[in-house]
């Protein structure tokens, strides 16, 4: 009887063939070099995503996605539901941490040029995952239904309108009508808890599969040295190291969540003037500031149309980066590196500027 555990595992393995995966993870080498630290950013995003799923499932037990009840139900979570305030706070902060690590992950791959052949589709699926994360943040921001979230959503959903031809259609699709109303709230809730998770899981499956298929990428200079790079096995050595990082991150997350819970303003009034100090979430601030300083007209064209089209173009260029920078890995691609830094500096300066 004492071996029933082993027997069960063997029985399951006989049917699922899981030992192939276990062996693969034991054999998978993780290179050790001075840029190895970036390998930890991907799993950090996953940790925060899992926390989002779990706390999201919890919040959904009390949240009510309607015009009349949304704000009050969040207020109830914050004041009446046992430990509700901390669950909402963790959900809100974990979103911030997740997106911060998405930015770091993206730029680490940009700067180490890991998107090059044969990892083009890994990068492209990553850009879609990035867009998904931002859309998660954008739809989630409206759900507490207070003055600030209403005004931010009005602006955010009106931005596509400046795109020629399809713009007005996109705005209506997002809003569920001509204006932001209770329908928008319900629609955003559906997108946030149903549509985006499905897309994100599918994209994540593609992304993670390709990372396993193509192996860990080496930075250019390490690859150019030609020497054999020392490696450690993915399982258990690398995973144990990652776990230490996860513990630290979760510790920081919970500390911040306890000390700085998110606020909740009074219920949004569709007829009231926009409140002072309307701001989107921090990761949209640089775009917000850009729209703020764009003049009403640029050479007979609506200034916002120009700005929004430029933003779309930037998004497309980032998506097609592996196609644009398809040089053989021996060449350094300095312009792309400098562009990466320029983008970071622009985002930082404009974000700080928007807070002044």
């Amino acid at each position, binding site marked *: 009887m004492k071996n029933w555990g082993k027997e069960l595992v063997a029985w399951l393995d006989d049917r699922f063939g899981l030992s192939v995966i276990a062996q693969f993870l034991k054999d998978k080498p993780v290179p050790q070099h001075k840029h190895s630290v970036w390998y930890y950013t991907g799993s950090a995003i996953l940790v925060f995503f899992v926390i989002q799923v779990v706390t999201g499932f919890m919040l959904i037990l009390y949240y009510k996605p309607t015009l009349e009840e949304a704000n009050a139900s969040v207020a109830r979570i914050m004041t009446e539901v046992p430990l509700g305030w901390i669950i909402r706070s963790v959900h809100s902060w974990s979103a911030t941490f997740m997106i911060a690590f998405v930015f770091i992950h993206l730029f680490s791959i940009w700067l180490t040029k890991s998107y090059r052949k044969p990892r083009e589709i890994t990068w492209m699926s990553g850009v879609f995952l990035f867009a998904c994360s931002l859309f998660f943040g954008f739809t989630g921001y409206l759900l507490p239904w207070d003055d600030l979230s209403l005004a931010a959503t009005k*602006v955010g959903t*009106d931005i596509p309108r400046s795109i020629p031809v399809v713009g007005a259609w996109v705005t209506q699709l997002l809003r569920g009508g001509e204006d932001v109303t209770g*329908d928008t709230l319900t629609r955003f809730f559906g997108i946030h808890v149903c549509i985006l998770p499905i897309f994100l899981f599918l994209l994540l499956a593609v992304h993670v599969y390709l990372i396993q298929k193509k192996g860990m990428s080496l930075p250019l200079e390490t690859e150019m040295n030609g020497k054999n790079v020392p490696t450690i096995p993915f399982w258990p050595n690398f995973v144990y190291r990652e776990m230490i990082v996860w513990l630290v991150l979760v510790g920081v997350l919970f500390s911040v969540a306890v000390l700085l819970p998110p606020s909740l303003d009074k219920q949004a009034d569709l007829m009231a*003037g926009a409140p002072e100090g309307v701001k989107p979430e921090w990761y949209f601030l640089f775009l917000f500031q850009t729209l703020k300083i764009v003049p009403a007209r640029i050479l007979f064209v609506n200034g916002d149309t120009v700005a929004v089209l430029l933003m779309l173009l930037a998004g497309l260029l980032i998506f097609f980066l592996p196609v644009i920078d398809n040089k053989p890995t021996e060449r350094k691609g300095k312009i792309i590196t400098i562009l990466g830094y320029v983008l970071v500096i622009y985002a930082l300066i404009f974000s700080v500027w928007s807070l002044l």
Partner: protein
Amino acid sequence: MKLKHSLFTRRQFLNGLFSGWTAALMASLVYPVIKFIFPPYREPEEVILPFADFEGMAPGSVKNFPWGSKPGILKKNADGTFIAFVGVCTHLDCNVTYLPDQKKFFCACHDGWYDEYGTNIGGPPPRPLRRLIVEIAAPDLIIKREDVE
């Protein structure tokens, strides 16, 4: 198999027919989905309000009224006439606020400014506030779209 003067084989013909049918079937399924996700919207042609609620407004003050799902703003001018606007910024759709001491409309989202007649005078707004026609037919106050006769 291909007939002597035919342009394509029987296989190609059947494949084409089958793909065509499948595409038509898909289109007939996608169409209702797209129709469904866009709810109907009609902007009101006019709203009728009780004049008594607005008669006593001080000159230079404003009062909001619902214009469909948007806020409407009724303003009493210094000479006692009324003027009405759709109270959303022409930049990115935020609701504007009237500042009586400065005689200006203000949009807090991106610092947009309009004068007391709704003309855009500062910040990003590309157009004046949309005007609405005010008709007084006591006991009613009728507010109409500009293009409705």
